């Protein structure tokens, strides 16, 4: 097991190297480069060559890349071209906000998805099964930003409630903070619950057809025991995969919710950085996101081992 984890960690190196190279080269291919953008803004240098030199963009590509990787290995993600703030500090300040939103959304999603998914499978093809499935797919079909807009407008018309324009950190006022995040989390969670619910349902359906479940019925075990002890444990493995994949989609989905609900998280930061062509920030966030997703996948594979003793790590 530890050897397997170690090997996966070693494999992380080439993937991350490719990630940095990819991000590094792609943002330099974006039309509308930072230098032109800065020169069109007031108050920045008017001398193109001088500006390029200042930003380190006058160097050939491979030199820039090697210098960047060297810095990253020392834990330095560079400074933002526009604000001159260290990128790592900025990311670390925003990461907890996005993570809180993602975890809250995940909790809401699971709270809806698991019970409905299990119930739908156990009572397959009853009207409740149809209702839950229709609801789940409905949740998946509605664009999140549209639902958020409709909810905000409806709330402001009927209850004169508008989402707060200023973000309150959890440490300062937990109640206020949660009140602010709960709505975007529910909307994100709804879309997420749909795929987890469907996966749960189809996995439970499959396990229900296994011989050992028939044996459990034949032994005369009550339904709750059959489901809890024999079905759920075996049905949960692919569900964990879907959850892991969804978490990475969730990190992308926060981009939209953060800009609607004015939450200063990573998503909003990335969107602004792309708009303003802030190379170090885009590179830093993407490196962070990619590392996070890869680490998550590793974690899922390890969790597999605990859920299913048949899986051997080779």
């Amino acid at each position, binding site marked *: 097991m530890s050897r397997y984890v170690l090997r996966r960690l070693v494999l992380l190196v*080439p993937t991350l190297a490719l990630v940095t190279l990819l991000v590094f080269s792609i943002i330099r291919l974006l039309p509308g480069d930072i230098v032109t953008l800065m020169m069109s803004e007031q108050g920045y240098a008017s001398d193109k060559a001088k500006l390029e030199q200042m930003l380190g963009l006058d160097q050939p590509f491979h030199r820039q890349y090697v210098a960047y990787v060297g810095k990253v290995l020392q834990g330095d993600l560079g400074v933002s071209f526009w604000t001159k703030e260290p990128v790592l500090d900025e990311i670390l300040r925003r990461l907890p906000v996005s993570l809180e939103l993602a975890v809250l959304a995940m909790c809401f999603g699971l709270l809806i998805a698991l019970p409905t998914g299990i119930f739908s499978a156990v009572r397959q093809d009853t009207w409740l099964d149809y209702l839950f499935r229709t609801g789940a797919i*409905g949740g998946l079909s509605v664009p999140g930003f549209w639902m958020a*807009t409709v909810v905000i407008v409806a709330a402001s018309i009927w209850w004169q409630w508008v989402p707060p324009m200023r973000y309150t950190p959890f440490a300062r006022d937990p109640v206020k903070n949660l009140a602010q995040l709960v709505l975007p989390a529910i909307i994100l969670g709804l879309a997420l619950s749909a795929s987890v619910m469907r996966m749960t349902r189809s996995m439970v359906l499959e396990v229900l057809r296994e011989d050992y479940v028939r044996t459990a019925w034949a032994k005369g075990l009550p339904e709750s025991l059959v489901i809890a002890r024999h079905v759920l444990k075996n049905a949960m493995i692919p569900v964990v995969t879907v959850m892991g994949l969804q978490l990475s989609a969730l990190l992308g989905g926060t981009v*939209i919710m953060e800009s609607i609900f004015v939450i200063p998280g990573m998503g909003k930061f990335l969107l602004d950085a*792309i708009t303003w062509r802030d190379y170090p920030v885009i590179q830093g966030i993407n490196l962070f996101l*990619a590392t996070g997703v890869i680490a998550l996948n590793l974690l899922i594979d390890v969790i597999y081992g605990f859920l299913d003793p048949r899986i051997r790590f080779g």
Partner: protein
Amino acid sequence: MSLFRVMRGKPLGALGGLLILGLLATALLAPVLAPYDPIKVRSSDRLQAPSLSHLLGTDDFGRDILSRVIYGARISMLLGLGAVAIIGILSGYYGGRIDMVLQRCIDTLMAFPGLVVLLTIMAMLGQGLGNVILALGIGGTAANARIIRSAVLAIRENQYIEVARATGCQDWQIIVRHILPNIAAPIMVVVTLGLGVAILAESALSFLGFGVPPPTPSWGAMLSGSGRTYMIQAPWMAIFPGIAISLAVFGFNMLGDALRDLLDPKLRGGPQGRA
């Protein structure tokens, strides 16, 4: 199994199929169905509420929302089918070749959240319908290539492939006669679900300002641009395209799910052994 029995057994799937048929018909017959020109500006008709002359109201340029939603079906189908076709070609190529470099590239692509990949590709290509299709196609390839590849790998190990090879079949014959029909099931599921994902992703891109540019009547652009600005004053501007997107994605998902259930013999029939 007759069509009628399938529809009775899978009412949700049948509903999805009907929705998709409706969508297809709307897309094909848009010029016949739409009462007005979807692009022509009529400043005298600005922001009119739904009425008999404009069933779904008008937008801030006085354009008929119903006509724009109808033409939007065309754009959405075009987007979805184009993206799925690109996914198919890229995945097919990738699935057929077991190439270390390509595999690592797919791994790398999968390490980013989907929307981030789409945003970056769109920022690189610039706005435009063709570019949105390309971005959705490339962005959707990573996950789907895996599904198709694993399906091909599973089929390839079967004995009948070995027999076909032993009787002297050529590679292309094996691919066309034996592999393609057997992976038709996962392909159909990928296509139907992929269409839904593409329509939804286009609306997210539009919201972030990287979608199909105006005045093209795309559903995503309609509900994210001025649709959001006039949400309180003229809610119909965003509500109807929103409903159109939701119904289309709903239909594709229902149909995809039903197809998956029908094509997977393991999921047919009820659970055994229950009293």
